[in-house]
């Protein structure tokens, strides 16, 4: 991707984001009392100012993409993209693993969820040490459990099935 197209893309996203903030998100999700006398003290003032500046910066990025001498090529990105769909599939798989971690933490408990997450990630990253991965998947979460539960006094979630001492 060229620097010009990168700037254009980021600039458009910034302007769009600022417009959504100013026209929808701030009026809907920022609550301001009706009796605010000084406008600069209103809870909505600061978010509006920030969204305004964001729009200006976005316009600046768009302007530089058209008028500046931007001739850089992000070669690293070009090389990475030539790998085909596999990297994207791995990203989706990692996102699914993260979603499953969130689902599993209150149900299976932190230790068991982390063990499964460790194994899933190690194989997702195509580890060359599968047996060591399995050992680490058991040992690392248990050691961290021992530290956080028994040394730091953190109430580590235990889940509904197997409880640890």
């Amino acid at each position: 991707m060229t620097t010009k197209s990168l700037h254009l893309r980021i600039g458009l996203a910034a302007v769009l984001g600022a417009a959504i903030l100013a026209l929808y998100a701030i009026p809907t999700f920022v609550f301001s009392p009706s009796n605010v006398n000084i406008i600069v003290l209103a809870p909505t003032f600061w978010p509006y100012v920030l969204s305004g500046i964001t729009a200006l910066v976005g316009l600046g990025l768009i302007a530089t993409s058209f008028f500046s001498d931007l001739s850089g090529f992000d070669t690293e990105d070009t090389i990475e993209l030539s790998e085909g769909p596999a990297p994207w599939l791995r990203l989706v798989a990692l996102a699914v693993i993260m979603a499953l971690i969130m689902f599993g933490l209150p149900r299976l408990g932190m230790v068991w969820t982390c063990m499964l997450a460790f194994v899933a990630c190690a194989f997702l990253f195509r580890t060359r040490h599968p047996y060591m991965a399995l050992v680490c998947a058991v040992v690392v979460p248990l050691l961290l459990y021992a530290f956080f539960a028994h040394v730091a006094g953190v109430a580590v979630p235990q889940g509904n099935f197997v409880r640890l001492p």
Partner: protein
Amino acid sequence: MSLMDSLAAGLSLVGNVEAFFMLFCGLVIGVIGGAIPGLSATMAVALTLPFTFSMTPINGILLLLGVYKGGIFGGSIPAILIKTPGTPASSATILDGHPMAERGEAGRALGMALYASCTADLMSNLALILFAGWLASFALSFGPPEFFALILFSLTIIAGVSGESLLRGALSALAGLLLATVGLDLVYGTNRFTFGDPNMMGGLNFIAVLIGLFAIPEIIAMAWNPVAHLGRTRALGKTRCTLADYWGSFKSIIRGSMIGVFLGSIPGIGAAPSAFLSYSEARRTSKNKENFGKGEIEGVAASEAGNNGVAGATLIPLLALGVPGDVITAIIIGAFMVHGLQPGPMMFIINVDIIYGLFIGLIVSSVFLLVVGSVAIRGFKYVADVPKRLLMPAVLVLCIYGVYAVNNNIFDVGVMFAMGWVGYLMMRNRIPAAPFLIAFILGPLLEDNFRQSMLMSGSDPSVLFRGPITWFFWLLTCVTVFAITRSTLRKKVPLS
């Protein structure tokens, strides 16, 4: 309290085996973290932070400072041996360090890197001790308008120099400021972007955001390209750094240390620009300037002195003004906050024992670094052999435990994952994450000082320009914007 009283108070806090043991452990963790490519000093500090929750404040902060200092030096080991900087600050070390390694002089280059690092670190710590107290006493006269102007200046410079582009840095800082508005309004107590979720009423957890921004993107990047980290490690060779080498580069080391101290004390600049400036100054003034870039030992000394000279100096704005000097000190400010401490001028009055305890610990850390660094140079082979594809799942598990431990709240783990994807998106689009995090920390302070200024003046904006201190910071802000814009236009690289 006199200086001797303050020193005695500090010594009573750190004068025990446990405090120095924590500092030593921190240096070991930092050197290992910095030496593993992809596991930068920043990530090492972020991952160590949760382990400090159960410690006393001084032990926890000393551990983190040890990780910081060790990490900055550790980054030079892979920079020299495998041409991959362990931290961005070590990028300049590659220029001469790796050619030396290719000639079979890696041991000599690493030895010089260590001696230059320790010298610069000591100078930086002395500068911190000399200037932080003075700056804090000066900052006691600051009111809300002065703090507003100071924070605005800090954010401007952080946005401008963190990445390759002012506009992209500014966008990152604005995103951080916007994220900081989540939660209950400070004046009226109404909801802002909480979506009716009680978990968001106190704002997003700082540690979840920082670990999400700086650790999770590395894991996602590993999923994108699991073989990106593979490289060839060079042998140490038979030659070692001699006293003659050290004295030959001494001028560059001292100059680099001073550059590091100066740039480090300005919030936001960080170690990488300091290393490159120190390197270019050494090349400009050296008798062997034609050897620079081909394996000149003075180049290694200058770049390492430049990046380590920053380490103590970044604590000057942190301790004296409460403004983090770079991303790592932004994480360290989290440790202060977790332990109920608020860095800033008042800390020099209320917690003088902790301040002087840290000073003593920092001086000792320079000596420890020499010991740990010498061992690390020989042991790098074992660190380099740690399979990265097992390390990253372990980092993920550590992140989950660490972020959960802050508030015993699974919601924070979700925030961390979400911020991880935000951080990865920023990484892919070359938007620097440092302004985001620092703006997220300083955002509430900026807004609070702005509102207090408006309340003081009956919403008269001229209060923001009320005296010489505010004029000074406004002037610095304008000069910064002008200088960055001009330099980028001259280079014909993105104005942005």
